[in-house]
């Protein structure tokens, strides 16, 4: 059958809006970032000129940038371990059908649906050093003898408590991914395993976890990307201080407060490449197709 000219043009017309958007506001900007990283572009020190690796040298010799790199490493470690660990735990809790499971699942998803800024705000009130419920509760139970400044004094402690807010947000995602994967496991496998005498923890460790490995891989990548890009929670909870700054807040600071776009671009390029490389590595190492 001959295809009319209209039929041939149709698919292109259908994908055109998609491609225009992605071309103009995703790919083109990415190219600009890659190019801008090598150009001196400082609003306070014009004009712009090609500088090779000059921007990279400047950012790496900046102690605040180095601090934020180290902090981001910690955000990634806390973010990935806690969100995947807790998400898997929640998925295991919800694996079997029981009355009320649907409602619990809906309630569990709530933190995922909330804006990161809002989460930062409500947790900062929980963490509050003078009136926070974390302090008052822990003190009345006797865990702490005096009120603590959870975010602000100690670097690792600050990062842990800020990271916890993001973990609160992304854990439901990990739980849903792992749960969906658990529900695809054929019931006969469990029957066979329990006939063989496997119970409880052994069953989870030897049967369930290996079979949901691909979902765990996706959850790790999601956690990785989210924590490498952590901004909202840090912006709200770490306002003013620098000891828990992340790569993203530092980039924002350099580009939009110091108005040094060149160095902002250099950090952006670095972060983009790191995100993509780490995601690919995580997929490669953890992902392995599972056959039932």
């Amino acid at each position, binding site marked *: 059958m001959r295809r009319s000219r209209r039929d041939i043009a*149709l698919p292109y017309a259908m994908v055109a809006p998609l491609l225009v958007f992605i071309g103009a506001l995703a790919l083109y900007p990415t190219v600009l970032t890659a190019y801008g990283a090598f150009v001196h572009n400082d609003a306070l020190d014009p004009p712009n000129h090609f500088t090779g690796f000059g921007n990279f040298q400047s950012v790496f010799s900046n102690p605040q940038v180095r601090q934020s790199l180290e902090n981001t490493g910690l955000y990634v470690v806390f973010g990935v371990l806690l969100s995947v660990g807790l998400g898997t735990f929640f998925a295991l809790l919800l694996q079997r059908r029981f009355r009320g499971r649907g409602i619990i699942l809906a309630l569990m998803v709530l933190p995922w649906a909330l804006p990161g800024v809002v989460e930062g705000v409500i947790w900062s009130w929980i963490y509050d050093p003078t009136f926070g419920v974390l302090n008052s509760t822990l003190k009345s139970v006797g865990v702490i003898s005096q009120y603590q400044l959870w975010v602000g004094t100690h670097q690792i402690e600050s990062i842990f408590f800020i990271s916890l807010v993001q973990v609160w947000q992304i854990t439901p995602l990990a739980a849903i991914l792992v749960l969906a994967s658990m529900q695809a496991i054929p019931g006969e496998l469990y029957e066979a395993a329990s006939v063989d005498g496997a119970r409880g923890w052994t069953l989870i460790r030897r049967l369930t976890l290996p079979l949901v490995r691909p979902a765990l891989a996706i959850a790790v990548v999601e956690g990785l990307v989210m924590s490498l890009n952590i901004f909202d929670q840090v912006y709200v909870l770490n306002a003013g201080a620098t000891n828990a700054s992340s790569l993203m807040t530092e980039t924002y600071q350099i580009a939009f407060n110091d108005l040094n776009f060149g160095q902002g671009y250099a950090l952006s390029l670095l972060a983009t490449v790191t995100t993509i490389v780490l995601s690919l590595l995580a997929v490669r190492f953890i992902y392995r197709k599972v056959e039932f």
Partner: protein
Amino acid sequence: MRRSKFGWLRGVGIVVLLLWSLFPVYWALNTSLMTNAEAQSSTPHFFPTHFQFSNYEAIFGIGPSSASTAGGIGRAVVNSSIESLGATLLTVVIAVVGAYAFARLRFRFRGPLFYVVLATLTLPVYATLIPIYEILTHLGLVNTYLGIILVYTSGFLPLAMWIMYNMFQALPVSIEEAATIDGASTLQTFRSIVLPLVRPGMAATAIITFLFGWGQFIFPLVLGSTNSTEPLTVALSALAGRHVVPYTMINAAAIVAIAIPAVIVFCLNRWIVDGIVAGSVK
């Protein structure tokens, strides 16, 4: 299935899950209904003793305590709604049409173009933030709804396209083949046969896109310098950053920002879970 001795352990686990997921939101709600004095008492009050709405009145600029400390939240709610809904509408329409072409139609460069679109899924915010600011400044779209909607749409499209692509893939081809044999054109088949079948998928995509739009922070923070387009997230962080605003009022504003996503999650939960799963396969 047999009840295992782990039954009570799971019960404890579920209590932990619920406390973890809900307590922070409950605490904000609780605080938002308290007076400032009660919120600052040294023993935690897990229920407000003088249930009152003055904090909400204040942030919306109603009543006596609506000083210059707060206010502007009403405008921010309108801004957030316009921006999220605009981006959702645009994203879903473009993604559905494009995803169908990629899933079902044959054309030159289909494979490479598809992978280009998918590859942008991996791009972090860093990759585009500063250039988008420069591009929008250049086009005069800073501080406009249109600018923000265009930026959101470009950011949400890859995931929306991927979710819809997987939804189309899950449909049996035979229905469309039958329609084609009956003489329906590609467009007719798409419009009257396929679209009604993927309505749940479109709903899932729309809900997830809307929630992403509602939660956006860094782009509107950078792209707006006045409160004419400022969404709730930016307004809330500004409110929290001003240290004179009482925490009861800040929590009231946070609850306003939580209310819409919370209603969506409780009413449309099924679709959200489906959408998340469809957006992650492979």
